[in-house]
């Protein structure tokens, strides 16, 4: 097949805010298809793969990491301004992920004191949030990290001019499609699968383990109170359940209010 001339290829960039760079790594993990796949794009910036970077208008920007500092926020706004499509990759970019675990429970000042021994916000830190809190996001690929197949399918869909297909149903669906025994029902394990976005093919229940929620709750759908009830009934203490829910989803509205500190000194 003849490759399209380079000026016809979509110009893309992959950017990192606060996170572990795991999502960029997952893109690179597409080893078998990576070269051919990326050759269909013109890569203008990809921190984890190359130090080369060009500051021009992009067709698609992929952003991983949460907004956790003023610096992240400035960078994000700049990326948004110069990109036609903005795709959040990974939970951090989608909803803040583990960095948001203690949001509305401890203030930035307390965290500074705990970690750096000073109360001053010398790093201009913000409460960690997903990028959608600040700018318009066109598509979100959840996961901690993202599934490489999902990255592949997203890139293919975008190339073909289709919106990417991201599951908006819970892990339970994948358990049933695969016939995996339900670990809540059969073993009373504290599975978060009923409220967590599918797409991992129920990886944990497939091994007899309970889902810890690494793909984050389903936006606009998750019934966090039902999860609290279901696990309470099986004898788990509230604190345990709330911490578990907060682990990957501290910013999720229904979960955020669980265990919120009433006299929070937290900014914002």
């Amino acid at each position, binding site marked *: 097949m003849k490759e399209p001339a380079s000026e016809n290829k979509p110009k893309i960039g992959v950017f990192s805010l606060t996170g572990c760079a795991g999502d960029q790594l997952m893109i690179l993990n597409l080893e078998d298809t990576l070269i051919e796949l990326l050759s269909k794009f013109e890569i203008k910036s990809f921190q984890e793969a190359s130090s080369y970077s060009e500051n021009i208008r992009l067709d698609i920007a992929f952003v991983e990491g949460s907004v956790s500092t003023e610096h992240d926020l400035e960078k994000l706004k700049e990326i948004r301004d110069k990109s036609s499509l903005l795709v959040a990759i990974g939970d951090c970019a989608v909803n803040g992920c583990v960095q948001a675990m203690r949001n509305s429970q401890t203030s930035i000042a307390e965290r500074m004191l705990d970690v750096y021994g000073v109360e001053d916000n010398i790093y201009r830190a913000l409460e960690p949030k997903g990028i959608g809190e600040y700018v318009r996001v066109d598509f979100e690929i959840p996961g901690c990290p993202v599934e490489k197949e999902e990255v592949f399918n997203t890139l293919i869909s975008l190339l073909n001019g289709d919106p990417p297909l991201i599951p908006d149903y819970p892990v339970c*669906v994948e358990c049933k*499609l695969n016939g995996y025994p339900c670990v*809540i029902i059969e073993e009373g394990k504290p599975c978060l699968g009923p409220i967590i976005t599918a797409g991992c093919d129920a990886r944990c229940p497939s091994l007899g383990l309970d889902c810890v929620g690494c793909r984050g709750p389903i936006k606009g759908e998750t019934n966090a109170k039902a999860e609290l009830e279901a696990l309470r009934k099986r004898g788990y203490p509230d604190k345990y359940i709330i911490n578990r829910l907060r682990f990957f989803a501290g910013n999720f509205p229904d979960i955020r209010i669980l265990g919120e500190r009433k006299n929070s000194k937290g900014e914002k």
Partner: protein
Amino acid sequence: MYKKLLKDDLENFIFILKKFGVVHAPVREAGRVYEFTELTDSKILQLNYTRTMIPPKKFFLKPKEQLYILNRREGFKEIVDDSKIVLLGVHACDINALNLLDRIYIDQFPDRYYKTRRENTIIIGVSCKPDEYCFCTSTNSSYALEGFDLFMHEIDDSYIIRIGSLKGFQIVCESENLLAEASSNDIKEFKRAEAERLKEFTLHLNVNGIQDILDASYDHPVWQENADICFGCGSCNLVCPTCRCYDTADFLNLDLKTGVRVRRWDSCMLKQHGLVAGGLNFRPTRVERLYNRFNCKMSLSEDSLNCVGCGRCTVYCPADINFVEVLKQVGED
């Protein structure tokens, strides 16, 4: 014509069944639920099972399957599975559920995939004992009159076998040496066992007029109460032997010219089920979806329920929503 098979001869009978296709039967491996899987060794067969989590529907309408190979230049090519299998040990409720699915996938909207699987599969029913979740006597599905090739009724040390199709008859002919004519005494035993079994049902649901009652109860508080504890996880639909919704998607390969169309089971409890082009969702809330599910299950058409009383949706709901309880609440107050 009724035949009789001694339990001691079951293994030999299975051996003969293998001539007709790969035998699948209920098995429970350590740490798993009962499931229909290939019977590699007749010692692992568990004909006295309660229920499989995933109904035998999975052989006809597969949980996920590839439908077409897509090719921009050459068009599409169907991927039809016409392998021969024998399903041994299907309960009456699940056979009746397949009969309901036939009405949709063979009569109303002929589906080549489903039909081919159905034609290539031999179904051998087996009698069962109810547990506290079974209510198939209430839904008129505790006994199978059609939709199987053979049906085995357990009595003491043997099975009384009913023949339900020509293929069933062929199996009987092949197994001549193993099968005896059922004597009048055997028939008596068979009837006694059936009557005994009926007495063991503890769960009952009055379905008379239930479609009307549901219609009149759209604002009953029980819907919201249950929607509040429901996850919208879809498990209830995905384990249901009569649920037939599916979703399809195309996946393209790197060349953007070839790809595959897949389908997977869908669930009306999931938010996207009611989502249509343009972003409109005609069942946006969980309470609407829950109400819809109960309505659907209680009315396939004017003359038929869409539920065979297998109890799965209650057993496998992580929120412990009890299907029969909800319907009783709606019907009784």
